[in-house]
């Protein structure tokens, strides 16, 4: 569905963990068009500082209420300003953008396995919601640095998702990484379909495991963006070239992705 430019209104803004915020926006037309894994380009204020919008995934899509929810880390200048937005404030954004998680090919046989690292949990919730509507809520394998970076677990559980958490310091769930959770293949006899979102090193590690084990796998990528529309070519990533004689080509994370089948993705060394 085509994206649109709209002025949203902040309905809720809450710090759910130190530095991590959950924001509900009134954006009926976006909510009606959006699919899990898509994102929006949000302006954090009306001025020139910062100049560019920030890409943030849709963490919840409620077409009935006409709302979208963002889950974000106040990481730098722009998201820190976003975190100061108050209820009632207007925030312009455009979206929904990009190609989200692919569900069609997987419909029949697969068991959805959400593999999240840190704030990478954000775009997986609406996917789990969609799977749970198909009565196949799946399993969440969630890695984080410590308990202070574990979010949205209850929302997954409410959907019937089985949740397994690993933290590096052991302050929540088992001590270890998300790859340790994956090692245990907690899906038994079922064929897993991995949906992966998180920091780049984690994406690479999971990708490598999936390839070695032959698991189906989709990966959500991040790149610096200007337009989010496929126009500026800022946000490219390397993907397998279809043309002969070429190892890779540049795809646009914003419109060809952000979600790719792992087989498409070519990592830089």
């Amino acid at each position: 569905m085509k994206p649109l430019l709209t002025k949203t209104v902040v309905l809720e803004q809450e710090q759910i963990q130190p530095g991590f915020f959950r924001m509900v926006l009134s954006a009926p037309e976006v909510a009606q068009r959006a699919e899990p894994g898509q994102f929006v380009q949000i302006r954090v204020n009306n001025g020139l500082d910062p100049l560019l919008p920030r890409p943030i995934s849709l963490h919840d899509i409620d077409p009935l209420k006409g709302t979208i929810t963002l889950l974000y880390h106040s990481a730098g200048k722009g998201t820190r300003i976003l975190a100061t937005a108050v209820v009632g404030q207007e925030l312009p954004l455009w979206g929904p953008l990009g190609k989200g998680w692919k569900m069609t090919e997987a419909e029949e046989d697969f068991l959805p396995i959400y593999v999240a690292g840190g704030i990478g949990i954000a775009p997986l919730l609406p996917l789990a919601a969609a799977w749970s509507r198909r009565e196949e809520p799946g399993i969440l394998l969630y890695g984080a640095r410590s308990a202070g970076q574990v979010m949205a677990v209850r929302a997954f559980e409410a959907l019937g998702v089985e949740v397994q958490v690993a933290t590096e310091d052991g302050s929540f769930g088992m001590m270890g990484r998300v790859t340790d959770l994956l090692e245990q293949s907690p899906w038994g006899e079922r064929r897993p379909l991995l949906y992966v979102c998180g920091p780049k090193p984690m994406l690479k590690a999971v990708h490598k495991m999936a390839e070695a084990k032959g698991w189906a796998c989709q990966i959500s990528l991040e790149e610096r963006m200007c337009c989010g529309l496929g126009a500026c070519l800022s946000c490219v990533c390397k993907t397998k070239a279809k043309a002969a004689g070429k190892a890779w080509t540049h795809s646009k994370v914003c419109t060809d992705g952000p979600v790719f089948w792992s087989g498409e993705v070519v990592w830089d060394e």
Partner: protein
Amino acid sequence: MSNLAVNLGGLLMKNPVTTASGTFGFGVEFAPFIDLNRLGAIVVKGTTLTPREGNPTPRMAETPAGMLNAIGLQNPGIQGLLEEHLPPLQSINSPVIVNISGNTVEEYGQLAEIIDRTEGIAAIEVNISCPNVKQGGIQFGTVPASAAAVTRSVRENTKKPVIVKLSPNVTDITEMAKAVVDAGADALALINTLLGMAIDIRTRRPVIANVFAGLSGPAVKPVALRMVYQVYKAVSVPLLGMGGISNADDAIEFIMAGATSIAVGTANFTNPRATMDILEGIEAFCLREGVRDISEIIGAVHH
């Protein structure tokens, strides 16, 4: 309603608002937000003879009221453009301008020759100033004789309007302007990006993989406006002004400095409707100030 139609060196535009190459893709990307038919013209992404993958990432960094880009002319090549991207634009009622870059003077001529025999392309914008390409690029844009040679090569291969796009990274922009006008340019576009860089102090490496990158956006507006003002005084061909235009007031500043048309670049990223907002703002200004024909205010600051 005021008359906003302008003639940019033989290219008739129904209004002065067009898009800056590389910031507007191939036009259709913005179709969800605006009516492309309302644009005075559409300038598409820079095109080369053969396809290019461009530079590695990061290619972009935000700066105060500006941005750096080092896309490195990623594009599907002229054939890709003609086959894939031009057809969807044919139903649009706005002239299409193709922005071209070559590695050699001859390549510019070849590109011009291909475009000359292609229907549906109204004019050529010659990029002699892309700072993100190692080969040639910057050299053509900063040496008058080279810029003139490129212009002549294009001129000899087309009857379509030739708009030469100047680099701001020069001591004297009027010298460049005169050289390319003498070599046959019908109009001049300015400015391309200022050469800049940024450093990540944590990694102690340049932020942009390519090290250097082009600065655009509101930050550069005062420099761009000054150059349009200077070039207007120096040559008599019409000018396509750009560099940091974010709203109608900015656009009118450029027109008053001497621009016949203006291009919206980085502002497309901060507001996908920027072109329309600017067009409507120019219309409102003309109405309010009793400007019956946009030509009344082109270069007004010089009068």
